[in-house]
């Protein structure tokens, strides 16, 4: 579990923001016009830090208008452990559902990217930090099987600071195996899976489906890794290098294929899908 990445960002917002027209960049600290940010795909005009998108905004940016069909949205979290501490998981679920209008931290379905059908899954970090419990795991597994059965490319946009959801205990941990097993089957069937990493993608999410893309692309400056920086710092008792666990760090160390700025993301996905689309003649020759 890596909650600290997000916490660190939250704690950086020190001074109050002047008024509703302005917002503070969580990365460079600049005060920027909200309207400008919204117009620019929610990217900081000063440092091009990519602010978090809701699943709705993400789908609007990536999928052709009026082509998205939400699927597997009949699943919602239960409370299998009867998890009760100072607050109860059951209450947390209800609060998050009321606040976000989501059933859980995932939206999935089919849609077109420039007229080409895809299966797309987007995690939503507003819901318990985009963490993976039974519903997220099951939704990804169903979407992956659908992509396999219908010969559609699979795109999963990940963004979770929490990884496997603590409140569902070992069941959450096992969703790492469930999603990875489903992706293995898609792989064996020759399906294309493009994993898109956004800020932050950590822990159990990164240590399962998010790392398993045929192609892995990340938005700039996203925090990506296994253990959160705070825990690492505590363990090794030394400062972490600049840019540690950012997209650029992962590219440099060979763990992602590309860093793609948000405004280019849809075009790039289309290009990648086209690049890997089997040529009808070649399919026969190979076998």
């Amino acid at each position: 579990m890596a909650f600290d990445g997000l916490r660190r960002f939250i704690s950086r917002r020190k001074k109050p923001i002047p008024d509703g027209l302005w917002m503070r960049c969580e990365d460079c600290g600049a005060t920027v016009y909200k309207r400008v940010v919204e117009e620019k795909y929610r990217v900081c005009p000063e440092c091009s830090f990519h602010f978090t998108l809701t699943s709705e905004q993400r789908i609007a940016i990536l999928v052709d208008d009026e082509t998205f069909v939400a699927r597997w949205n009949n699943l919602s979290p239960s409370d299998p452990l009867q998890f009760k501490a100072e607050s109860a998981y059951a209450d947390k679920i209800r609060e998050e559902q009321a606040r976000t209008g989501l059933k859980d931290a995932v939206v999935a379905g089919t849609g077109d990217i420039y007229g080409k059908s895809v299966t797309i899954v987007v995690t939503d970090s507003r819901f318990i930090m985009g963490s993976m419990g039974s519903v997220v795991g099951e939704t990804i597994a169903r979407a992956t099987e659908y992509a396999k059965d219908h010969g559609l490319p699979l795109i999963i946009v990940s963004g979770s600071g929490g990884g496997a959801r603590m409140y569902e205990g070992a069941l959450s941990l096992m969703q790492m195996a469930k999603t990875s097993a489903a992706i293995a089957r898609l792989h064996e069937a020759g399906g294309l899976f493009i994993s898109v990493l956004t800020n932050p993608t950590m822990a159990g999410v990164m240590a399962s489906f998010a790392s398993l893309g045929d192609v892995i692309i990340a938005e700039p400056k996203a925090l990506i890794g296994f253990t959160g920086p705070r825990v690492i710092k505590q363990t090794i008792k030394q400062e972490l290098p600049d840019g540690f666990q950012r997209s650029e760090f992962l590219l440099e160390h060979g763990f992602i294929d590309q860093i793609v700025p948000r405004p280019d993301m849809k075009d790039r996905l289309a290009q990648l899908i086209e690049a890997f689309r089997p040529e009808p003649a070649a399919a026969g020759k190979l076998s």
Partner: protein
Amino acid sequence: MEDFLEFEQPIKDVEKKIEELKKFSEQMDVDLSGSIEELRKQLDLLKREIYNKLTPWQRVQLARNPGRPDTMDIIATFVEKFQELHGDRFFGDDPAIVCGTGIIGGHKVMFIGQRKGKNTKERLRCNFGSPHPEGYRKALRKMKLAEKFHLPVVCLINTPGAYPGIGAEERGQAHAIAENIFEMSRLRTPILCLVIGEGGSGGALGIGVGDRLAIMENAYFSVISPEGCAAILWKDSEKANRAAEVLKLTPKDLKGLGIFDDIVPEPLGGAHTNPAAAMETIKAYLTKTLTELKAIPIDKLVETRYQKYRHIGIFLEDQQAKVVMLPGKGVVESALPTPGEIAAAEMGEAQAVEEEEDVKPGKED
């Protein structure tokens, strides 16, 4: 570190008393056998009373007891003709995961075990059982080798978690674990996993996907350490005992959730009180289970493994708002369970808990 835990103090007290009486009777040449026998009976009762109702936190403490039989003890005791195979062929050789060929109860196997180390020097080398990416990659390489030669894979899990460090991140800790999970889900040879101590999160899962998941009676398996959970919930890692309760990390809970298949019993008081007996049980369990798994045709084995993982998870589905868990039941083709499957679940063919739509999840049963 004391070799017993706080809750074991009453047992130690009686044991000490018995020793004192024995000594006294020898020195003074008086017959105290009656009193000693009485105390022995008391001790036996006390042990049963304490060990039969261990709290989850006490079990976590037992799971961490350094006197428990570990990977190296098991290799030394009953893995015959063990030949260690080192290295991931990329970066290095992580001593926190030991791999090699050997024979268990007549079965040739590829043996993979997490290792914490027995003394300070070893523990530092093994990072107290927290593997680096090269450890997971070494394990995967040896598993692929096992697949090529149709050797079953035996994985012994005992880690507080994968190592949290700069090098581990630079070399792709998350990626290494993900690749292992991915490949283990489809490896075309039997895989048997046994948690012998700590089953810490992704670090455990990195060698923990298989056809049979087993856990020792006083071991645990958790999404997060009790200390880590307590730090999040109460901002206080001292509340780990409460965290251990809510996480449902004991073997019995995990079996109830449909995650683990088997619980391997331990001697009363824990495996560390009688390592030889504990290892005898482990050997018998591994031998029997390997025989079973080897008898299953490989296609069926791999399909069953997929279905096993595919159906782990508990959630509410559809407007009927039912908690449906269908272990081993297929919903692969259709997005929803068919009415028949739901009916079957309700009739108890599979595990199902009914809930009214308007009732909040998490109500008391």
